[in-house]
């Protein structure tokens, strides 16, 4: 069965051009960039080129880019570094809707004596900047706010938040894993001190990420034991993956317009059609500014895992903020923070598109999903009540 892949916020297909770029660096050009011979030296040049490509996408300089293994490592490295650099400060600010890579770390730090503030969001998933303004203080060491939410696609006003943070002299980190490649970024004019990105969310392979670290911001490495990345991230470079990330960033810049036009049009069409064809549903964060590729729709009286399994039977790959898919028992922390009504909190489905999706695929989902929701509502005691009422 050919997959209809609408789960690009989970991971993406490696672009063929990216794969071709990295291919020689396994069996042929396998040298260590740190070596003194020509064979390693030529790989060093490609790593330098990759660093430039990543920097260009972010509007940064190459020496501000540190390669890591993943977005989670970048997040951990950024936050832990800030705490070590300013040991006298004990207050951390983040949001209730962060990715677990940030949220779990902050909550663990909370148990170790740090004061942790988790900013709230409104019913549309939007941040309240006044709350940030009133909580950031002289004791605040770092503020970590995601650029765009992975579940709903809601984009936060990062530059405005950064301005508030800088006024109080705290460091400002953003987990931009979902935003890079979809939203134009320019670190040269930004308030961001540190930014995390992940390769596999933008058509590079899994196992590679990067941390942008503004020049002049103090850094205390999380991984030590080697001089690599200017001693900011020890460990032999994952050369093939780094080269792949460089290529993926170059391509992301080329395709940014496509993401914001063609992909967005497909997302909007999918969303509009599902809203028309299916009653008792709502878009999570629909009134907020969102990524062009993401839609999260909550269906009343049905459960997300059941929807996903039936979609999967048709080859359609999506994701849910539902409890049952993850093994946890509550709806996602993001939907709960937004106060999504309990009638549909368990029935949220996320479709996340990429430039590889087609209009025909959108048509398939528009055809297949409404009968699936109807079928599950006919099994559900609450769904049956709803259908009976509607029939009257």
């Amino acid at each position, binding site marked *: 069965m050919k997959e209809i892949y609408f789960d690009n916020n989970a991971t993406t297909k490696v672009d063929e051009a990216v794969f071709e770029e990295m291919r020689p660096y396994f069996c042929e050009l396998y040298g260590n960039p740190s070596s003194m011979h020509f064979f390693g030296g030529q790989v060093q040049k490609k790593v330098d080129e990759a660093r430039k490509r990543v920097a260009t996408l972010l509007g940064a300089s190459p020496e501000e880019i540190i390669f890591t293994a993943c977005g989670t490592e970048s997040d951990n490295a950024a936050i832990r570094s800030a705490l070590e650099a300013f040991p006298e400060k004990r207050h951390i600010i983040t949001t209730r809707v962060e990715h677990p890579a940030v949220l779990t770390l902050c909550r663990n730090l909370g148990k170790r004596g740090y004061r942790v503030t988790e900013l709230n969001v409104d019913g549309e998933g939007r941040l309240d900047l006044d709350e940030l303004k009133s909580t950031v203080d002289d004791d605040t060491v770092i503020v970590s706010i995601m650029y765009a939410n992975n579940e709903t696609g809601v984009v936060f006003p990062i530059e405005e938040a950064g301005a508030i943070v800088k006024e109080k002299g705290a460091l400002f980190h953003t987990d931009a894993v979902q935003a890079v490649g979809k939203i134009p970024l320019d670190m040269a004019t930004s308030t961001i001190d540190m930014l995390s990105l992940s390769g596999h969310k933008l058509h590079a392979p899994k196992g590679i990420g990067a941390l942008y670290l503004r020049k002049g911001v103090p850094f205390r490495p999380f991984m030590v034991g080697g001089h690599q990345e200017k001693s900011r991230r020890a460990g032999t470079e994952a050369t093939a993956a780094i080269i792949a990330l460089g290529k993926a960033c170059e391509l992301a810049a080329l395709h940014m317009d496509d993401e914001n036009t063609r992909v967005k049009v497909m997302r909007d069409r999918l969303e509009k059609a599902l809203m028309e064809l299916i009653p008792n549903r709502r878009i999570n964060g629909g009134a907020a500014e969102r990524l062009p590729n993401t839609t999260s729709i909550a269906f009343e*009286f049905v*459960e997300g895992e*059941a929807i996903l399994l039936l979609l999967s039977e048709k080859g359609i790959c999506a994701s849910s903020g539902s409890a*049952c898919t993850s093994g946890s*028992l*509550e709806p996602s922390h993001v939907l709960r923070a937004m106060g999504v009504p*309990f009638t549909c909190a*368990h029935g949220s489905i996320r479709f996340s598109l990429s430039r590889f999706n087609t209009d025909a695929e959108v048509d398939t989902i528009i055809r297949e999903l409404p009968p699936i929701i109807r079928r599950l509502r006919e*099994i559900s005691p609450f769904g*049956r009540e709803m259908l009976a009422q509607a029939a009257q």
Partner: protein
Amino acid sequence: MWDYTDKVKEHFLNPRNVGEIQDADAVGEVGSLACGDALKLFVKLDEQKQRIVDAKFQTFGCGSAIASSSALTEMIKGKTLDEALLVTNQEIADFLGGLPEEKMHCSVMGQEALEVAIAKYRGVAAPSQCHDHAEQEGEIVCKCFGLTDGFLKKVIAANKLHTAEQVTHFTKAGGACGGCIPKIKELIDEVMGEQVKEVRKKPEKLTNLRKMQLIQEVLEKEVRPQLWADGGDLELVDIDGGNVQIAFRKACAGCVSSGYTARFVEQKLRDLVSDDITVEEVEG
């Protein structure tokens, strides 16, 4: 992705007995929208009001909740009410070729709905209703899912659960805020304690078969729970006359004190089964 058996998938994709019975003799409802799953079960009895002739269900929930409901309705048809009450959640899971442990609460929900339906028909209070705040008995332990100590103790005992994580998988208790996990651990100890008391005093005479059964029982109820408490475990490999061969598992495997633990096991078996028992640790 969950590793569902083909039978779970089949019952989810083609659920049996979805719907309602207009003139049902018994109806049981458990769960809620907020909890994330709910089941409404309809049971129809024959003219003598003896046997179940039809059963239908409506379920809001995940794939395994729908499959468990479908399985339950198939299993109880043709049974008397007393026979139906003997259906355990484990049997529902077994009918489906097993459920992932994290999904065992789906089978528990099926069993519960059946109990509620029959209790209502008979006009008695259900022995252990969770989800239904108005009627439940006992003290609420898990506030997030509204589960009482009576209900949790029953599931712990019936399924021989020995960690708080398992209790969460089977009942959801502790799966949201986690605030009740210490209390769940206390309940496990309490249930274990009661089970230990059930073990009989050392008998005067034993046939070989009875001796083997008793060794197994003591290991199950008396010894292993104590090892679990420290993250360890053992497996019974063989019994040859009075010689009991065991293999250590988990934290006990390779533990420097395993020799001491083996003597502890031996003493227990001598105290509770027979004086001539020796315990030998083997590779298994």
